[in-house]
């Protein structure tokens, strides 16, 4: 009888083992490229924005004036980004909550799939198309309705952003509500609660962290949106007067980057200042996203 081949690795033909190891290093190398892309981005931003922090220190974030070549102050952009995102969030939150409850608790499976498909398509509409819609309709409406001289305001940008992130927030919130175990619903219904009571008193509190996470991920997306905001926010580098006047033009970080990067590209203090803005945006978005993912994960474990 012939000797049966044995498996322990020291008995394998040498060539096979070498081939196997070589291939592994190829995959490891590809993985390294991916890690470098993500990590390199962060390091690059820090590295490139170092000169401006050396020059201005933390005053960079507190300065109110941005005159190319003289002063670089990021406060108006920071304020604009925060305000636009917060307003968009305020607009989206109640709507997302209400619609997510309805989709997840009151719709039949078929129509739920249908609505979710629509939402997924909506989430893929390019930013530039929203920008075009904003320029041609939203900013004109806001101008007419509120009797303004210029329709390109913080409020316009927030409305547009709210429409843009609504599908993402809705889909994720609905997922969070669906992930509440079916026994909870059955128990509640068995105790004689109505469908409405089950949805609001049992499912909703359970799904709340997931919904929070969904909203935070939406905010993260809204904060980084460039094109649509750039076209309708008015691009005026100052804090509105008074500060809560949402019907005045302002500036957000991505829109500032989009407007000025082409002239400053590559070198100089101006570029460094823009990269520092980018770094600020990156850190803000990452933090929001990190917290959002935490919320989503907690839901899926428990």
């Amino acid at each position: 009888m012939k000797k049966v081949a044995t498996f322990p690795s020291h008995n394998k033909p040498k060539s096979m083992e070498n081939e196997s190891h070589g291939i592994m290093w190829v995959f490891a190398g590809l993985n390294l490229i991916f890690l470098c892309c993500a990590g390199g981005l962060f390091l690059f931003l820090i590295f490139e924005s170092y000169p401006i922090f050396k020059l201005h220190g933390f005053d960079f974030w507190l300065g109110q004036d941005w005159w190319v070549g003289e002063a670089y102050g990021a406060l108006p952009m920071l304020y604009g980004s925060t305000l636009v995102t917060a307003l968009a969030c305020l607009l989206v939150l109640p709507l997302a909550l209400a619609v997510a409850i309805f989709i997840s608790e009151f719709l039949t499976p078929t129509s739920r799939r249908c609505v979710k498909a629509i939402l997924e398509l909506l989430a893929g509409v390019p930013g530039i198309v929203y920008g075009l819609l904003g320029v041609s309709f939203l900013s004109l409406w806001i101008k007419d309705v509120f009797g303004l001289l210029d329709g390109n305001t913080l409020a316009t940008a927030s409305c547009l952003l709210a429409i843009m992130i609504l599908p993402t927030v809705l889909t994720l919130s609905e997922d969070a509500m669906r992930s509440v175990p079916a026994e909870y619903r059955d128990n509640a219904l068995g105790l004689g609660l109505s469908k409405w009571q089950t949805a609001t008193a049992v499912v909703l509190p359970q799904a709340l962290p997931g919904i929070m996470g969904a909203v935070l991920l939406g905010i993260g997306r809204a904060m980084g949106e460039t094109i649509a905001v750039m076209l309708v926010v008015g691009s005026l580098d100052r804090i509105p007067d008074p500060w809560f006047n949402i019907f005045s033009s302002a500036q957000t970080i991505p829109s500032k980057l989009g407007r000025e990067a082409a002239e400053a590209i590559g070198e100089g203090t101006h570029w460094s200042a823009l990269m520092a803005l980018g770094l600020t945006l990156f850190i803000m978005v990452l933090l929001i996203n990190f917290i959002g993912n935490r919320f989503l994960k907690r839901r899926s474990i428990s």
Partner: protein
Amino acid sequence: MNPATFEKGMVFFLTILTLLVSSLLLIILATVFAKGLPALHSGFLIEASENFGREGGIIYQLMGTLILMTGAVLISLPVALGSVIYQTQYLKSETGKEICRQFAQMLNATPTILFGLVGYLFFGVYLETGVSWVTGSLILAVMILPTLQVSIREAIEALPDQYKDAGMALGLSPWSQIKTIIIPQCYYGIITGVFLGLARAAGETAAIMFAATTFSGIHLPESFSDPVPTLQTHMLVLTQEAANPEALAQAWSAGLVLLSLVFFLTVMAWILRSRLKMEAEL
């Protein structure tokens, strides 16, 4: 108020809200169609643009968009596939996997304009590819990396354990397992990822607007260092001329073409994903 009436009222209210939100897509679609169709004459897709985009067609812009997104997927696919295979098949340490996950999430969350800035500096200036379609493809490739990874990872993780066990019992080396089991079985997942990545790349403006594109002056790139005109930049420039009705009409038509392209790619991805689900259930 009677609680039952109250509940009925609330449910009715929610129905209306949901209908409103769902009709949002229809409104957006209808608007783009209503605005885009009038300027869409028979030669729109096969003529060059004239008079700074105010007349003529969009053939070169469309070609530019297609070149950029195809290039991006061609660059991104091997990296995405390789890194996911490494993470799922070779990487044993949980910490390592967690780090990879965090990095993927980070890449996914990054505002796209930052890809444009950093990508231009890294590829365009340091690697000297300049303002060109190569730079644009590289930037978009990094941007769609997480999209591809998610699809491929889902497909690999959905593979039944028996397949891998059978492969191991046959004494296949890890590489033979990847070659004969994982890649053929995850084929649909990979293609789904490719389509989603193409759709994401097609809809992106901010990342490429100053690194890879030009508005006029160039038709098709003749070398690796030429920029291309794209639908997105075309729309952006025309939109900023909002006072000029001709320009705006052209922007709407270009928008209609772009939106159709993105929707087509997304729907293709869905069809393939449902194939994937069906295979997994067999």
